[in-house]
Structure formats: structure tokens, C-alpha cells
């Protein structure tokens, strides 16, 4: 549900309070990967049968050094807030600029916010929240191999023996294949996404009589994005073949929400009742247009008007809407027995007329045991609350008209010397499509001990998702690749512990510790008795992810690697009967890894000594497998790509005992998706370390300030992992929530250092 959330900041003092924050930082990748040098590359190419005039290739370019950079960032935020008897205001503005750790990637954002509340009378209040953001970024091509312009895999698989530019100013290519060096991708293609977003609402609250409050809220979210790209007609092979290419895409999303709620509060003795009813209407309208021209006279003008050939011009619009009825009842007795009941009905335009409405109840119960007489005299326990809840939530996050059989324009074909309009059936109608439902049951408790110095929280949950909205693959003999259906169910079970302790709470020195750990197990309970393969890997190696009943979501899928035959240097695999084979069939593929961690934890420590604070946040994941598909590209040895340094241990002559097969031109049998590329993705990392210094009160007073703090933060400073890729926190198929744990030249998490100052007046 796209409900607008605006974090509400408001004034708290009649004297205007002014804040100013700023930091500067630098980010970099924390690891590079060793690759073959020029001589080692030449040896490998010779083994593969390639020969060339090697003497003409005498450059020594470290492509990772060219691609990775120290990305500088800066950030400024300022705000003013305050209140008078009837007015409450908050105004802020900010600016951020970042260079990425990969060449050419960048981000810039400026924004302002105004929050204003005004009492009109004792019973009526109006308010507004307004935020405007201007945003620009330049993305890099990742999750692709060098053939498709992927920058990270380009840096690993481009041999060092070529320079950056040819004498004519064009980008160089692999000596044996016209794969351009990775700078062609970062520098040869101008591209930028920019957007402006206006987010705001006005509301009115009226007390009708004591305890009964009415609120009406109208909010909008206007988001206007423009993507521009320009491939000049000279420097890249693709650009020169097209004569240059300029693309301008715009997309505008207009959203509004209209809410009406009535809230009733009543306290009778120790009984506290709060009831709410309301309606919500929300609507999105999407408008896209794109234009592409080619054939440019120069690189002087990069906008489409300079291209002589209009290649594509199109515009589309779409809509979706939701409407909801809400009701909620809160009841508590003496703050000891707590009950909440919710019921909502949601209607969505994404479903057909007979299935638009979903009905979602939820209940929760609480018992503050510490308020009971039998614990009242206990000194040790400050607060002890037991909680239990049950509820159902719905999901309608599917394409706007997913239930309809869409007949799409655009399948045009020329007769009579001109393009004629053509249509094609784009989706299969499914009038039975309905809300996906997740039913969650949870129990837990909160415990505070020893003057609230120690707190302990436990939550356990079971979440069963049914009528899963899933793109079911169809036999393509039907004319469709898949159809969206409510099929199957998933189960998530888990338990989360969180522990906080004020270890040393003195005034001059304090030490607080927080620790949380979560264990989650998920399982595909039912998908119509079938299995679904996802995430195809480059080079015809088949899919690497499977959805299968009884197995965890996103299980990794492939062959079992047996080893390297010392006689021939070929990889052998273990087939489904446990026998060795050089030529396994598709049926020999099995589950080879689970990308879901056994547990995930976070550990924070805050030390305060006089005016110094030290905050340390350590994060870790244990027991998750990663498919390092980057290595399939860098250890496959099937063509003229540069390879990882590990391949110097490859099989070369009969009798060699090694776990790296021989080089073999064009042959993927030695680099199938297999257990060979499955790695342990567990890690522990210093996610954040911050040291800050608060200026002493007397200096603050002297400067007529409220506070002044200097700080330095390091992110991802140090990582312990056995994972051999750039970074274990990656997901090449991030856009797909059922595929995870695959690294394929994916942009890594970076190490960041930040110095900042924070002041209030």
C-alpha cells in the first residue's frame, strides 16, 4: 500500500531552534581481486590456440585501478523549528553530493521541507507537510559481463596489455574480440537520471465533542523523472555503428490520497477505550514518454534534436487506485490488560470486478504482568509485558491491469512502404486473480530489569502466505511465457532476540551494549506441485535458482562438481546416481546451496567518556551460501577474456592434480553452474564506527550555542569473510524477491569514511 509517510518533526520551544549538520566523506571498495598479468594472459591465450602480434601489445593497465576511485561526498543540512501558542513550525533544507567508488557513478540531492501546524480555534487545527527533493544520479552498468558492457566484470576480464584509447581516440578492445575496455562503459556513454519530487499534504482536525475527533487529510506525491543518455558517434564501436544515439525518457507519477477518520477516546475509571473508523482513497497515474534518435553530425549536441534519424518516439499512460475502510478498537484496563482489534476492507483496481475486495482482521493482546500484585513488590523487575497477536495482511503489488488479457499495440510491420499498426496479445486474462494474504501469528515479551538498566525482548512468529501472487511459467506452446496466478503458499518462521544493557551508567563514563539476533526459516510449502527455475546464467549454462516445494525460497541450483580428471584436465560431475560423469544431463542438477542465513545479528556498543562518544556497530550473517557467478566468467577459460589469478593453477599436462580444469575454447562443460562456485557467504563486519566529541558546556555557552559536536564515522571498515568476491552483501537479481545469493559482477558495498559537524543554536 503506497501510503505517504512523512516523518513529522515539529517545533518544541518558543525560541527558534536552529540546527546545522555537515559532513565530508570518501568511499572506496575494500578489496580488489587478483587477475592474470600480461605474460600469464599470453600463456593462457596461447594454450587456447590464440596467437597475435604480441609485441604490439605492450601496455600494462590495471583495470581495477582505473575503475575504482575514492569517491568524495559532502552533505549539508540546516533546520529551524519553534512554536507559539497556536503555531508550530519546522523548516529544513539540505544538500548532498556523492561520487561513487566506481568511476563515473555519482549522486546529487537537494531538498527542503516545511511542516506547519496552526490552531484555528480550541477545537480545530490545520496543518501541512511539504517536502521537495531534486535528485540526480549516474549509475554504472553492473550485473553484466563484458560482452554487455558490465563495468565490474569488464575490469576483471579485460587484459592488462591494452591501453585505454586507440590512436584515433576510440576505446581499445580485447585483442581477440571487440569487447571494449570498461572505460568505454563508464566514460563512453553519457547518462544521467534526474527527478524532482513534490510530496505534501494538508489536513484538518476537529474535535466535535469531547473525545470525538474528525480528521480529513489530502496528500499528494508528484514525482517527475527524466533519463538522458548519449552515445557519441566516434569513441565506441556501437556508437559509431549507430552514428551516435541519444535517448530521452520521462516518467511522471502522480499520486494522491484522501483520508477521512473519526476517532473516539473515552476513559472511565481504569477503562480506556479508543475507537477509530475511516476511509481512504488513493490513486496513482503514471505517464511515460521516450524518444530516441540516431545519426549525429558531431558529439557537440547530446540531446535528441541533433540526431537525423528518429528511431523511436512513444508515450504511454496508466493508472491504479485503492480504496479502504478502516476500523480499530483499542481497549486497556489499568494499563495491564491490553487489547487491540483491527478490521479493514481494501479494494484494489489491480483485480477483476469480482475479486477487488480483501478483508483483513487482526488482533493483539497484551498483559503487563509487572502491574499485577504478585510482582508489584519485586525490585528487580521494572516492566514485564507478554504480547500475542494474530493478523492477516493483503498484497496487491502486481501490474496495474494484471487480471486483464492485455492486447498491446506496437507489433507494427511494414506494407506499402510504411509501418502498419499491429497488436499482440501481451498477457493472458485471469479473472480469478485476487489478494495475496499473509497470516501472521506472533508471541513475545518485553522485560526490563534492574532500574531499566537491562532490557530483553523476544519475538517469535509464524507467517503463512497463501494465494501467493506468482508469475507461473506456462509452456510457451500456449503463446505466453507466464501468467500471474494466486498459487501456492510460503511459510516463514522465526525468532528474534534483542538485548540492551547499560553496563556502566556513571556520569563520566558510560557503556551501553545492544545485541540482537534473528533466526528465520522460510519454506515453499506449495506451488501447485511443481518446481520453477529462475535466474539464467550467461553462456547457456541454465538457471541457477529454484523454487521447489519443501525447500527454502531462492535455493541455488546446479551440478555437483566432482573434480578435475588428471588425465584429460576436464571437470567431472556427480550425477543423480552418485556416479562420476563428464557429461551430466539436465536431470543431474540438484539443490547446491541455500542463500538464507542460519542467523543474522547486530551488536552495538556505545561508550561515553566525558564529552567523547564512541559507537561501534558490528553486523554479521552466518550460514548463507553464495553463488559466485563472477568466477564462472573469470575462471571459465573458454575464450579471450582475462581471468582470475587462480587459473594459474589450471590443469596443463596429463598427471596434473588440481581443482581447476583445463582451458577449453568455447566449451562450458568445465564451468557449469556447480558446487565449485558455491561459497560460504557468512561474514562479520564493522558496519559502523563513530567517534564523536561534544564541545564542553562552558565553550558552548561562550559561543551562545546549544550544542556542537564533531564526529568521524567509518562504515564497513573491516570485514571477516571467507567469500572470495568483492563483497558478500550482494544480490545480482535484486529486482526479483524470489532469487537471492548470486553475485555476477555486482556493485559491492563500499568502505566509507566520514568527518562531520553537528550544531544547534
Amino acid at each position: 500500500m503506497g501510503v505517504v509517510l512523512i516523518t513529522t518533526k515539529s517545533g518544541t520551544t518558543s525560541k527558534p531552534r536552529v540546527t546545522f549538520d555537515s559532513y565530508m566523506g570518501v568511499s572506496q571498495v575494500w578489496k580488489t581481486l587478483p587477475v592474470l598479468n600480461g605474460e600469464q594472459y599470453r600463456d593462457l591465450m596461447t594454450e587456447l590456440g590464440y596467437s597475435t602480434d604480441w609485441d604490439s601489445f605492450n601496455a600494462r593497465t590495471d583495470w581495477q585501478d582505473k575503475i575504482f576511485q575514492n569517491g568524495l561526498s559532502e552533505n549539508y543540512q540546516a533546520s529551524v523549528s519553534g512554536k507559539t501558542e497556536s503555531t508550530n513550525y519546522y523548516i529544513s533544507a539540505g544538500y548532498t553530493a556523492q561520487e561513487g567508488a566506481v568511476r563515473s557513478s555519482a549522486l546529487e540531492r537537494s531538498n527542503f521541507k516545511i511542516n506547519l501546524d496552526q490552531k484555528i480555534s480550541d477545537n480545530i487545527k490545520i496543518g501541512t507537510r511539504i517536502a521537495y527533493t531534486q535528485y540526480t544520479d549516474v549509475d554504472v552498468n553492473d550485473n553484466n559481463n563484458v560482452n554487455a558492457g558490465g563495468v565490474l566484470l569488464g575490469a576483471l576480464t579485460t587484459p592488462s596489455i591494452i591501453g585505454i584509447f586507440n590512436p584515433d581516440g576510440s576505446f581499445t578492445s580485447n585483442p581477440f574480440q571487440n569487447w571494449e575496455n570498461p572505460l568505454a562503459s563508464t566514460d563512453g556513454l553519457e547518462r544521467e537520471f534526474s527527478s524532482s519530487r513534490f510530496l505534501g499534504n494538508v489536513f484538518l482536525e476537529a474535535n466535535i465533542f469531547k473525545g470525538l475527533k474528525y480528521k480529513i487529510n489530502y496528500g499528494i506525491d508528484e514525482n517527475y523523472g527524466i533519463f538522458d543518455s548519449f552515445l557519441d558517434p566516434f569513441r565506441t564501436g556501437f556508437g559509431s555503428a549507430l552514428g551516435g544515439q541519444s535517448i530521452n525518457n520521462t516518467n511522471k507519477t502522480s499520486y494522491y490520497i484522501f483520508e477521512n477518520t473519526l476517532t473516539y477516546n473515552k476513559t472511565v475509571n481504569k477503562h480506556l477505550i479508543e475507537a477509530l473508523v475511516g476511509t481512504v482513497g488513493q490513486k496513482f497515474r503514471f505517464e511515460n514518454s521516450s524518444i530516441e534518435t540516431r545519426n549525429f553530425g558531431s558529439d557537440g549536441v547530446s540531446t535528441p534534436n541533433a540526431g537525423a534519424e528518429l528511431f523511436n518516439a512513444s508515450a504511454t499512460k496508466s493508472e491504479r487506485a485503492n480504496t479502504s475502510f478502516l476500523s480499530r478498537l483499542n481497549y486497556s484496563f489499568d494499563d495491564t490488560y491490553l487489547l487491540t482489534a483491527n478490521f479493514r476492507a481494501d479494494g484494489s483496481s489491480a483485480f477483476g470486478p469480482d475479486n477487488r475486495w480483501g478483508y483483513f482482521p487482526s488482533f493483539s493482546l497484551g498483559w503487563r504482568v509487572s502491574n499485577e500484585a504478585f510482582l508489584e513488590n519485586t525490585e528487580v523487575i521494572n516492566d514485564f509485558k507478554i504480547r500475542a497477536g494474530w493478523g492477516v495482511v493483503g498484497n496487491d503489488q502486481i501490474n496495474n491491469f494484471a487480471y486483464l488479457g492485455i492486447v498491446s499495440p506496437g507489433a507494427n510491420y511494414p506494407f506499402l512502404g510504411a509501418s502498419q499498426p499491429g497488436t499482440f496479445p501481451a498477457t493472458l486474462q485471469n479473472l480469478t486473480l485476487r489478494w495475496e494474504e499473509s497470516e501472521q501469528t506472533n508471541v513475545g515479551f518485553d522485560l526490563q530489569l534492574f532500574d531499566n538498566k537491562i532490557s530483553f525482548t523476544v519475538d517469535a512468529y509464524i507467517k503463512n502466505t497463501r494465494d501467493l501472487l506468482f508469475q507461473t511459467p506456462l509452456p510457451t506452446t500456449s503463446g505466453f511465457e507466464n501468467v500471474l496466478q494466486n498459487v501456492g503458499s510460503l511459510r516463514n518462521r522465526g525468532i528474534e532476540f534483542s538485548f540492551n544493557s547499560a553496563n556502566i551508567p556513571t556520569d563520566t563514563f558510560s557503556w551501553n551494549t545492544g545485541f540482537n539476533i534473528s533466526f528465520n526459516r522460510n519454506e515453499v510449502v506449495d506451488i501447485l506441485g511443481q518446481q520453477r527455475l529462475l535466474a539464467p546464467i550467461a553462456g547457456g549454462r541454465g538457471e541457477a535458482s529454484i523454487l521447489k516445494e519443501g525447500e527454502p525460497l531462492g535455493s541455488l541450483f546446479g551440478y555437483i562438481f566432482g573434480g578435475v580428471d588428471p588425465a584429460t584436465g576436464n571437470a567431472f560431475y556427480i550425477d543423480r546416481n552418485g556416479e562420476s560423469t563428464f557429461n551430466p544431463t539436465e536431470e543431474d542438477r540438484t539443490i547446491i546451496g541455500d542463500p538464507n542465513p542460519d542467523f543474522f545479528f547486530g551488536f552495538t556498543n556505545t561508550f561515553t567518556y566525558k564529552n567523547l562518544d564512541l559507537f561501534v556497530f558490528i553486523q554479521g550473517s552466518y550460514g548463507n551460501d553464495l553463488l559466485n557467478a563472477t568466477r564462472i566468467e573469470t575462471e571459465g577459460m573458454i575464450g579471450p577474456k582475462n581471468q582470475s589469478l587462480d587459473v594459474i593453477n589450471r590443469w596443463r599436462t596429463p598427471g596434473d592434480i588440481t581443482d581447476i580444469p583445463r582451458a577449453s575454447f568455447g566449451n562450458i562443460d568445465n564451468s557449469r553452474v556447480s558446487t565449485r562456485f558455491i561459497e560460504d557467504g557468512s561474514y562479520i563486519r564493522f558496519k559502523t564506527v563513530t567517534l564523536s566529541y561534544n564541545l564542553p558546556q562552558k565553550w558552548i555557552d561562550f559561543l551562545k550555542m546549544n550544542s556542537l559536536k564533531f564526529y568521524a564515522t567509518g562504515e564497513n571498515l573491516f570485514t571477516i569473510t571467507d567469500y572470495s568476491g568483492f563483497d558478500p552483501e550482494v544480490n545480482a537479481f535484486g529486482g526479483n524477491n524470489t532469487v537471492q545469493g548470486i553475485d555476477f559482477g555486482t556493485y559491492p558495498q563500499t568502505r566509507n569514511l566520514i568527518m562531520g559537524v553537528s550544531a544547534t543554536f
Partner: protein
Amino acid sequence: MKTKIFLIVACLMISITSCNDFIDLEPISEETTANGYDSARQIEAALVGTYESFQSAEYYVWDFVVYQDIRSDNCYAGGDNPEIFQVDLLDISPTQSRIYTHWSNIYNAIAKANLVLDKVVLVNDIALTEERRDQIMGEAYFLRAYHYFTLVKLFGGVPLVTEPLTSPEEEVNLPRSSVQEVYDQILLDLDLAGALLPDTYGNDASVNKGRATTGAVNALAAKVNAQKPSPDYNAVLEHIDVLEGSAANYQLINYSQLFSANNNAESILEVQYLGSNEGNFGPQLLLPPSISGDAWRKFATPSVDMVNAFDSENDEIRKNASILFESVQWVDEYWGNSPGTTIPFGYKWKNASGFASADNTYLLRYGDLVLLKAEALNELGQLSQAVTEVNRIRNRVQLPNLTNEQSSSQEALRTAILKERRLELFLEGHRWDDLVRYDRVIQTMNNLEEIDLRTGNSVNYNMTEQKILLPIPQQELDRNPNLTQNPL
């Protein structure tokens, strides 16, 4: 106070009563199956969309070169795609993404044709004449037949789908039909199409060579009757006779003009292109740097054996119309394992135009049918008439008549016709099918001598009976439990 409450409740009620309308939305930029096929223009658009598969199904764009010319003895794989090298080396795995792409694209084209056939009879629009309604049905029957012919040649017996799917509740896990059943369906569709279609639609060549006609039906029917198990050579000759009597007046034209003029008199059916966003990206993948404007290694390289075949006949005209030699900076492992070697490029398409060529692609041309006629005559023992037809093809490229030795027996003439087809139809997507039809694919591929200069050894293609057909795509087997794999 009470009026206030009343007003507020009224506000709430307004938003409640309007909510069902509020979420009842219609697509703006798309139509639906409920309203997309009502009028004459809409059914024409659905038919245009069916033809569009010739542009969007990659098999018809250029992969016919991969599976007919690279897979056979005509070309080597180049480029950077391991899957195409696998095709060249006859090591095609069921997980190969290209075969799945072709399977699904071609079935998508069939689904479009099925939809047109299903909807056209329901159109109630005075703008749709009965004559045009018949033609639309004929065009759809023809297109469906064309695509099933492609499928049965590539994969053998495939599931027969002849009605559109309208709901996921219907049975979709269809088993394979036999090769015979697929051919029966093709011939049935062609019979229906032949009765419904005109010889020509008027005077515009881009329509007469772009849309299905009786000429296209008879040409395809002749090819089908020759290719099917237990060929019917009399039927081949009957269809070619009808074709030659067509008002469209198909003629052999000057060979060098065949590949410079779209929709010429020899053409029976072509994939239509205009360039730009109606452009053909295939030529860019084959043409040399001097034409394509880029310097990467192209995906198909004419083989030494192919060039030798042209040279052995002194076939300069067709060689020059088909192949362009150029010196390149990359290394070619068959033509010279060092940079600067002069290597051949496929040159039947002449213009690359930045992946958006205006060069059409032949789906059916009369020259092919003349050689097919010779083939049928030879198989029926009418050798001298067969020789006449072959000589028509040879004489137009200034080659002498077949020698007495070449026409001395049915078997000798078979060999001569097969070679003539190779030279005539190089890079037009016929070679593998021809070798299969002549039952010479195993012997040809295993006798092929192609020296890989990196090793100095001849490539072992290891051709077997099982490799005649492509594997059924694994991705499709995973989707359909009732489907069975070809012997691997």
C-alpha cells in the same frame, strides 16, 4: 453541533459510495481481449502483429543462418557467443537459451495466428468485406503452416496448438504430436489457405511479396511435400506448376540484383523492412567492418569448404554476390591464425545501417523452387527435364550446363542438384534442411575437413543420427511435464 456531525458523516458517505467506481479503471494505452478485436481495423492490426513475428522472432531475423549455415558445412561461428560456437561444433545442450528463444518465439507467432482465426469470424463490421475476411483467414492459415514447418524441421514432432488459450484453467501441458501429424496439419492449413488467398493483391510489390498469396502457398506446399517423410514428388511438381502459372508471374532475375532489390520478380515472400525502427539487425552481425562501421568479429564466417565449393565450379557471380573478403585485425582460427588475415564475410545482405538495415530477407524465392522442381523430376526418374531446370539456374550465372557425368545417373544428378542448391542458396537458411532431406547430413559433416589452425588438426564434428534434430529446450520441458526429449 449536530449539523456539524451531520456534515462530516455526509462527507464520509460520499467517499464510501463512490469507491467502487473509484477502483474500476480501464487501461489507457492498451486494449484488452474483450475489446481489441471488434472492428475491421482491429483484426487487420492483429494480422499485422502476426506478420511482425518475422521481425521479432530471432530465428527469422538471422538465426536461420546459425542453425542452417553455421550448423552445417557452410560457415563457422564467430563473434563472442559460446552458444553459437556450440551450434558450429554440433554440441547443442538442451539448456541452450537460443533454442528456447526460437521455440517460444515461433509458438508465439502461432498463437497470434490462432487468435486471428478465432476472432476474424466474430468481427461484425461492414468495413470488413467477405472477400477480405477470407483473405485474412487464408493469411493466418498460411502463417501457421509456415511456422509449424520451421518447428518440425528443427525439433521433429511438436505439440499441435490450433486454438488460442483464453484462460490459465485450460489444459496447457500438451504432449508432442508425431512428425506425420504435424505435416498433416501443415498441408491441411495450406489447402485451406490456397482456397482463400489471391494470386496478388494489386500492383504494390511490398504487399504482393509481403503478404501470403497463392504463390507463397504453393511454394511452401512444394517444399513441405519434398521435406516430409515419404515425400510426394508428384505433389511437389503440381504445386510448382500452379506457382509457375500464377498471375504474379514469378521469374528468375539477374542474380546480382537478387540481393540489391527488395520485392523483385523472383521473390515469392520476404520479411519486410524499412530501416530505422522497422530495421533488420541481422546484416550488422555478418557484414565486414568496412560496411558495418564497427570492428568486432562477426558471428558467421564462410568456411574454407564453402569457398572451395564456389571455386571448384568457377562460380564467380554467385561467390561475389555472397561473399566479401576483407583484412581484419582479429584472429580467425580457420583462415589465418594471426591478425591482418584476409577473411570472407557473408555478403548477401548489403547494408548494415547500424543494426537497422532496410534489406529484406527471403522467406520463399522462385530460384529455390526451380531447383526443387529439378529435384522432384530427378526423383521421379525424369532426368533430362531435371537437367533443364538445373541449367536454367546455372546459365543465369554464366555457368555451363551440367556435364554428362553430372547427369549420368539419378544419384549423380542428386549430388549435382544438392551442390547447386548450396551455391545458389548459401546464407539463406536452407543447407541443413537440404542435407537432411538428401539423407547426407551425417556423412557430410563427418567427412568435412576443416583445419583448426590453432591445433593444426581437423575438427571432429562427431555427427550422429541424434544430432539431426535439435534437443527440445530444457526450459520448455521444465514447464510441461507431458513433453518428452528427443534422443540425445
